[in-house]
């Protein structure tokens, strides 16, 4: 697990063409969108709506993949494929932690 980097800088530099201001803008968009999705996940935890949880996790994974946020991607992927509702809270916590680590890293 530790080998997964927090951020694949090569990916971010590729899509921003090395523009640091643009990278900051894209990362800010990720923090805003994933933050809102985490709130939605919080509400969904009380349900057993696997499709809804997987959909939100999938969107987080897409955001993370887009910018090379590899640990966040891995955490979201684990939630997306977790069938057991009782394990969702720990998966969501892992997503929350990965997002916080990305935020302090950049």
């Amino acid at each position, binding site marked *: 697990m530790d080998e997964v980097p927090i951020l694949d800088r090569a990916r971010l530099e*590729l899509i921003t063409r090395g523009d640091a201001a643009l990278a900051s803008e894209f990362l800010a968009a990720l923090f805003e969108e994933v933050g809102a999705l985490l709130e939605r996940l919080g509400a969904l935890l009380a349900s057993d709506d696997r499709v809804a949880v997987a*959909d939100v996790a999938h969107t987080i994974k897409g*955001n993370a993949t*887009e910018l090379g946020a590899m640990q966040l991607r891995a955490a979201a992927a684990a939630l997306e494929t977790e069938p057991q509702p009782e394990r969702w809270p720990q998966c969501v916590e892992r997503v929350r932690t990965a997002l916080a680590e990305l935020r302090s890293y950049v």
Partner: protein
Amino acid sequence: MNLRSGHRRARILMAEDSALIRRVAQFQLEELEYAVDIVENGQQAVEAVANGNYELVLMDMRMPETDGLSATRAIRENERTTGHHIIVIALTANVLDADREACIEAGMDDFLAKPLKLDALKAALERWLPEVS
């Protein structure tokens, strides 16, 4: 980057539910000097295609409510009366054969893997959009 100016006139519609991915794609399409309008779901895409003069749609497969497959089926259904065929390219993280088959059955013309790479996007747009001299 060498750009052929003819492509710049092409009007592209993109349907994508993620704000971040919309923003990145907008940047990529601007880099390639294409004009793009962006909608957030499949239903909006169907309406935009019916009302706008687009030449190509970049359609996310997985969107809430009307997904990319349903939207493409609706676009193709509407085209039965117009005889027009707009190019629809699926944007998908799943590049399995079964997903490709579903894209083709829904009436999509091509697919691009997410996350979008600039060179792959450029190649697909140049392949599908006719030259305007």
